[in-house]
């Protein structure tokens, strides 16, 4: 778009940062990372009061807005409008397409399950509801759990079976990704693509935001090269050069600031 090229700054609106991540919501983080990969300068603003909206994250430039619930998502819209397309070379490779599909379906489902159903909900409370008054937060939280269960097809009868299936698929996906990655820095063509953005977002969320007792987290920790991949890219693209992103909260200050963490010692519980 002309505005972007003329130097008008992008603004990315996401959910709040915590757990050492620039934004802790698993749908927003990949968009943030994708913009970082593309080396586009952008501002970040936070929406702390609308946890059940599917419009967030969205990108504004000038009077144009790209919402996440339109045209296949923010990343896809940015690629379509040729604002920034990191996948121009790889989008034809069948393996790339199927790897991306696997990450977007199995791993996304696993994170959704773990965040809302599998764990004790403390992470979800902190990310989505810590800035809403208590009665509203509680109501929306229960409403969301119910919606996730419906989405994942979990009922009282098949709860255990579905849980086992979700974790099995996640483990299979990690295995495949670990094999595919090997010792490279990126999954394909040795440069970042939207697949890297999506998986990196997933990995950083699983490693940092989920509690230590999380089953999904322990499955990811089984693959050292994936963990190394996540940490290295985080240091290179996410933590470094934080001066280019200015943070300004929407409506109120986030209740927790980003804690600084050194190189982490990963331990499995």
């Amino acid at each position, binding site marked *: 778009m002309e505005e972007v090229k003329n130097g008008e700054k992008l603004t990315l609106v996401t959910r709040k940062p915590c757990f050492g991540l620039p934004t802790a919501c698993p749908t927003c983080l990949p968009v943030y990372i994708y913009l970082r990969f593309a080396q586009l300068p952008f501002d970040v603003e936070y929406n702390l009061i609308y946890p059940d909206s599917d419009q967030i994250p969205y990108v504004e430039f000038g009077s*144009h807005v790209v919402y996440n619930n339109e045209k296949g998502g923010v990343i896809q819209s940015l690629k379509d409008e040729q604002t920034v397309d990191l996948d121009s070379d790889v989008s034809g490779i069948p393996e790339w397409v199927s790897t991306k599909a696997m990450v977007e379906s199995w791993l996304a489902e696993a994170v959704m399950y773990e965040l809302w159903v599998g764990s004790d909900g403390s992470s979800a409370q902190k990310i989505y509801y810590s*800035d809403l008054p208590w009665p509203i937060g509680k109501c929306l939280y229960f409403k969301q759990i119910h919606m996730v269960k419906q989405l994942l097809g979990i009922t009282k009868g098949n709860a255990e079976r579905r849980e086992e299936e979700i974790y099995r698929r996640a483990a299979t996906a990690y295995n495949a990704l670990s094999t595919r990655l090997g010792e490279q820095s990126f999954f394909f063509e040795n440069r970042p693509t939207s697949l890297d953005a999506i998986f990196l977002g997933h990995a950083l969320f699983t490693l940092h935001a989920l509690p230590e007792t999380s089953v999904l987290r322990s499955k990811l920790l089984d693959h050292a090269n994936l963990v190394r991949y996540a940490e290295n890219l985080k240091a290179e693209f996410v933590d470094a050069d934080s001066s280019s992103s200015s943070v300004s909260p929407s409506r109120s200050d986030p209740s927790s600031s980003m804690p600084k963490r050194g190189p982490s010692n990963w331990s499995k519980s």
Partner: protein
Amino acid sequence: MAASFEDNSTGQPKDDALKSTAPARTEPEEDNDNDDDDSQEEDDDDEEEEEDDDEDEQPPLTRQARMQSDRAKMEALFRRLSTERVPVRVHDVLIKGNAKTKDSLIEAEVEALKTATTVQELLQAAGIANARLQRLEIFDSVNITLDSGPPELPGTANVVVEVVEAKNPLSGDFGIFSKPEARSWSLEGSVKLKNLFGYGDLWDGSLAYGWDQTSEISAGLSLPRFKGLMTPLMARISLLSQDWSKFSSYKERALGFSLGLLSSRNHDLSYNLSWRTLSDPSQISSRTVRRQLGHGLLSTLKYTFKVDRRNSPLRPTQGYAFVSTSQLGGLVPDYRSLRFLRQEFDLRYAFPLGLLNAALNFGISSGVVFPWGNGFLNRPSYLPERFFLGGNSSPVCTLGGPTSILGFKSRGLGPAEPRRQVGENSTTESADASSEMDFLGGDFAVTGFADLSFDIPLKVFRDAGIHGHAFACTGSLTSLTENSYREFSLTKFKESFRHSAGFGIIVPTKLFRMEVNYCYILKKHEHDRGKTGVQFSFSSPL
């Protein structure tokens, strides 16, 4: 003696039995029987007799002679009542006819009767008590009777309150009303349940649907006297949904609970707790509105002070009125609920001009809203709580804060922001550029008007209540939050005023009150939605 009493118990007319044995001791009792009359406390026809132990012994009389003597006694009593204060003490208050209603409720309403010291005071207090019981709306009829007290206590009276409870506790209502917040009129249906638990409780459920897709469903409870509190207690829960998409690109949904704490003629205090959600399904909102989409908890205390000395709320020709509304939000000790302070003033004055029943009405009203708490200088005010000017409501009739300037459409003036751009062409917009703007309201609003109303000098119009008026309105809406107050200056403020003037005809009918006005916009800003021309407006007939 014993014999005569036994005779009485077998049903012989008491008078004859007493008369026939007629020793002096039974005389007072006989007199009692003659004097004992049930009486109404209503008007001059009321008969009211006091027990008079000192009455002289009377020889046996024929029926007609007795009536004459009664009438003479009555006239003597009335003479006494009109010339001197006749002392009396209320001995007992008896309540009859209430099967469901609690005694305590009725006793509380007739409390004042017990302290009456003269007959005149008693009659007055009884009239007031009757009116208050009728106002509870739970009885079909109320009768207060003054009776003589027990024979051994002279100078006393008993009060007998007879009520007939409403047979049908359920009643329904259906109508077309105009709400001050809504843009136009709404259809409202309500169902009332009276006196379910005997405390005078009034339960009601109502459903309202407005032409601008505002809809509200609510249920309420009103307790006239709850455990000795002086003022009625009212509680209400409601689910309200308003669609402002055409004006400001958002929809508002509010689930609220409100409690009326104090309600008297001049003062009103209420508490409101509501969960509000702003959403934008069309996804075309401007940046400011986008930032405000989401959930919020409002916990507010609202105090209204009102003095209305005008002779009519719809067509005032004399008097003044003053309303002050203060709202404090953010009381729940949860720092995340919305914190703001809102204050409105409204002053009206009307004076008659004599000719053609004409009157000049002046009014000025203003309002300001500001957030408080940490970082309040940088924070924006909450969008639905801002002031919006515009709409067709008549400034003469709507009392309470700055709301309307005739000639401008609803939410049609003030700070505006362009909406999200969809599509390729960025700069050239066809025809209606203002339809691409979101009106954001303002933090500081001032309106003023002058209105000259007069009768149309034709008998047929005058009888129907149709009258004409000429008016001039002005108003300004500015924003102060998010550091805009730093750019506030007197010249800019003067520049921000919009003006309009015009004349029209007002037609009050039984169903609604219609105004047909021709408005001429004297000054407006670039994006305002105001048009010179004829406009209609409808409001409730009151």
